[in-house]
């Protein structure tokens, strides 16, 4: 199930809220756990077994480590076992085809690829269970003795599908001691509506533009159309992903959880380094915590630091998808991060601020081309056209049409990519009571109403063969 669907908002959510809030406190984790399983099983009935296995497996690992705390051989063994099994599951379902294809082309052999659909959210929950076992091993958190509580953590439906990746240590206390409140619920509702609007109104609509431009043969593209297209994608992926994260965090709050922020206006960054502190924050900090720092981070000299960065960004790229273009995309960022560390950040410091912004946005936008084209050669052709290395015209009538029919949407996307709206709302709240009690609730109600209209329209499916 996805949040941005009628069935979630108007059937699943109200039923779960109802059952959850009429249940006594000690039953709530169970209700939440079962709700999460239904949420997951909806459309993925078989793969729920993998998730349940993951849950039980790491629950036991936590207990084992705790029991044999004195015996470092055993605890180490349990830890390694957990890492191998968790990553094994992830690799099997996500990377099996990719690995086999590469082996095939490398050795010119022909091993059959079994195409398995990717289990929903597997990249997210394996990272969560993994972080739990590691943290228990490092004695950073106490192991969870209650399987329902642990299940609640792993399967937590608000962040199950697309994050944020919650570390056990962040919610350990809340799982058993959280206090729901109407204030928290209201905050959650606000975030949910905002996230829903980002996804349904903004991301989906600008996505149409990108899909249109992407479908045009490269020989018929103009230079400005390629820019327009990839900028549309730049907006689409941000509003889609951050909208989803907002909804997740909002839903969490409705049930008393405070999940970490996952996006912080990434497109206003003044450097690539800053961008990665603002984009998919929970993933970045996971890799820092569980890969970069254990490898030695920056404490063992330049060479080792570069090696560590290389590994982290190779894996970050790979995490996004089982394809070389994602790895290339990760390493592309690695290069810019290293360049920034060595000299660029210093150099940019005393230059006008807009230069930093332009530089950063350019890197990001070109990066999305690498990210979006699974066929690397196609992506490179697209980049070539963008920078005028082709016989494509600067613009054509299509460019003009796409530009003016999307102008309002693009302007809206641009504004919403900056903290401007948030700041304006804060000001409004601070200065006038009416803003707080009337204007903002009305805006949110209207947004909710419009989102409903867009979601209902998704089912508008005229039978097109009208017997011409």
């Amino acid at each position, binding site marked *: 199930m996805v949040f941005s*669907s*009628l*069935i979630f*908002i*108007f*059937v699943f*959510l*109200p039923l779960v*809220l109802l059952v959850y809030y009429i249940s006594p406190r000690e039953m709530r984790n169970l209700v939440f756990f079962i709700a999460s399983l239904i949420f997951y099983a909806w*459309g993925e*009935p078989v793969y729920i077994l993998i998730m349940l296995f993951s849950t039980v497996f790491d629950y036991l690992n936590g207990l084992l480590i705790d029991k044999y705390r004195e015996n470092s051989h055993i605890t180490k063994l349990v830890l390694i076992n957990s890492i191998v099994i968790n990553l094994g599951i992830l690799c099997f379902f996500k990377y099996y085809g990719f690995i086999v294809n590469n082996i095939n082309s490398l050795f010119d052999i022909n091993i059959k690829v079994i195409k398995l659909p990717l289990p929903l959210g597997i990249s997210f929950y394996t990272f969560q269970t993994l972080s739990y076992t590691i943290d228990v091993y490092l004695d950073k958190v106490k192991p969870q003795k209650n399987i329902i509580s642990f299940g609640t953590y792993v399967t937590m439906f608000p962040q199950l599908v697309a994050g944020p990746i919650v570390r056990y240590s962040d919610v350990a206390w809340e799982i058993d001691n959280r206090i729901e409140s*109407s*204030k928290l*619920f*209201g*905050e*959650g*509702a*606000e975030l*949910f*509506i905002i996230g829903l609007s980002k996804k349904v*109104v903004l991301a989906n609509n600008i996505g149409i533009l990108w899909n249109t431009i992407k479908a045009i043969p490269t020989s018929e593209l103009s230079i400005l159309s390629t820019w327009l297209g990839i900028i549309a994608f730049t907006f689409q992926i941000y509003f889609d992903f951050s909208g989803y994260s907002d909804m997740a965090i909002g839903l969490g709050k409705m049930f008393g959880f405070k999940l970490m922020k996952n996006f912080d206006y990434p497109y206003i960054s003044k450097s690539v380094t800053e961008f990665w502190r603002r984009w998919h924050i929970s993933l970045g900090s996971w890799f820092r915590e569980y890969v970069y720092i254990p490898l030695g981070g920056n404490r063992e000299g330049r060479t080792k630091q570069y090696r560590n960065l290389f590994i982290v960004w190779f894996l970050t790229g790979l995490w996004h998808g089982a394809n070389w273009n994602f790895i290339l995309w990760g390493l592309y960022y690695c290069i810019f991060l290293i360049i920034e560390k060595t000299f660029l950040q210093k150099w940019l410091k005393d230059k006008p601020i807009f230069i930093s912004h332009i530089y950063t946005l350019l890197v990001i936008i070109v990066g999305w081309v690498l990210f979006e084209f699974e066929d690397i050669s196609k992506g490179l052709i697209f980049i070539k056209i963008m920078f005028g290395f082709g016989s494509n015209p600067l613009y054509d*009538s*299509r460019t*003009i*049409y*796409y530009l*003016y*029919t*999307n*102008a*309002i*949407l693009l302007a809206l996307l641009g504004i919403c990519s900056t903290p401007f709206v948030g700041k304006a709302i804060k000001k409004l*709240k601070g200065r006038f*009571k009416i803003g*707080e*009690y009337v204007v*903002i*609730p009305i805006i*949110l*109600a209207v947004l*909710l*109403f*419009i989102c*409903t*209209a*867009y*979601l*209902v*329209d*998704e*089912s*508008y*499916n*005229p*039978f*097109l063969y*009208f*017997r*011409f």
Partner: protein
Amino acid sequence: MNKTNNSHKNIIGSILLIYIGLIMLFNIIISDKDFSDMENRRLEQLPKFSFENIFKGQFISNFEKYISDQFPFRDFFIGVKSYCERISGKKENNGVFLGEDGYLMEKFNKPHDKDFKNRIDVINSFAENTANINKYFILVPNSVKILEDKLPYSAPVDDEYFYMNKVKNGLDKNIKFVDVYDIFWDKKDEYIYYKTDHHWTTKGAFYAYEKLAKSMGFYPHEEDYFNIENVADNFYGSLYSKGGFRNIDSDDIKLYIPKKSENYTVKYYEENNTSDSLYNMDNLNKKDKYTVFLNGNHPLLKINTNIHNGKKLLIIKDSYANSLVPFLTGHFNEIYMIDLRYFEEDLSKFIKNNDIDDILILYNVKSFFEDDSIKKISW
């Protein structure tokens, strides 16, 4: 201060809950609908709950469809979305442009070279097979070309005129290409296309009739030969449904009824019934009012007229022909209409057995290039 903050949050929380609650309430109160006229399809009904259904995954997907299809005030919400799109400056939805003066026009996408050649080849091979019969071909441009001035500024559509000419030049000389493009271009300020439907109006068909008569060598009746009756003024056609735009003027449907009464028998083969009228007036109460002409499309029908000149015409056609044929009944004794999309018999036998004198192939540009049934024409 802290307290005021809380009550503001409470308002927002309550809004969400009340909104969802109300929708659920309406969902229960309002009874389910069977059919959507706008979409021309059956709406999903509450699926039967059984464990078998659940395991097959059918229940889940059907239940989701059911929730969206039966959503309270569904049509209203779809209208709201359409308004939002319009406010945001969008000019196109689902392949339909919102043009000036409320004209909806469907996008034309050029055919692939190979496909183009294929279509010409089958027609030419048909021409060889029927060498002794007079053949005429009308390719009707769509509103998206003739009314291109009304399209949104610099809208991305391919040029129908270019491909019409390519067809004209590629056809066997044995087929007379009746070019209606120029006359349509001249008359583009008249009401020759519906605003909300993909067809030509009866007036458009009349101009094609005049052109065809010249080509076939008979004198067409003039406009004052007919009583022009306005039989519907609230016609919202296929493009209205497809594009989903709201707040648009409806179309009129006019019938050209000869002042001198003519008698016909229309025989519908598949349905196995006959009628003494070219029009099915009941259809004017339905959504798709264009089906007033000859009751829509049929694999095969025959019209006998009281013009006893012995001339037999076969029309191989799409639905544009339905509003043209009423003009031709004054000039032929027998008219057969074959719609290749539904016609499953042997075309060669049919032509041989029925002593056809003239064959008219009539398609609009879009359906000629987009519908593959034309390939059934050669044998």
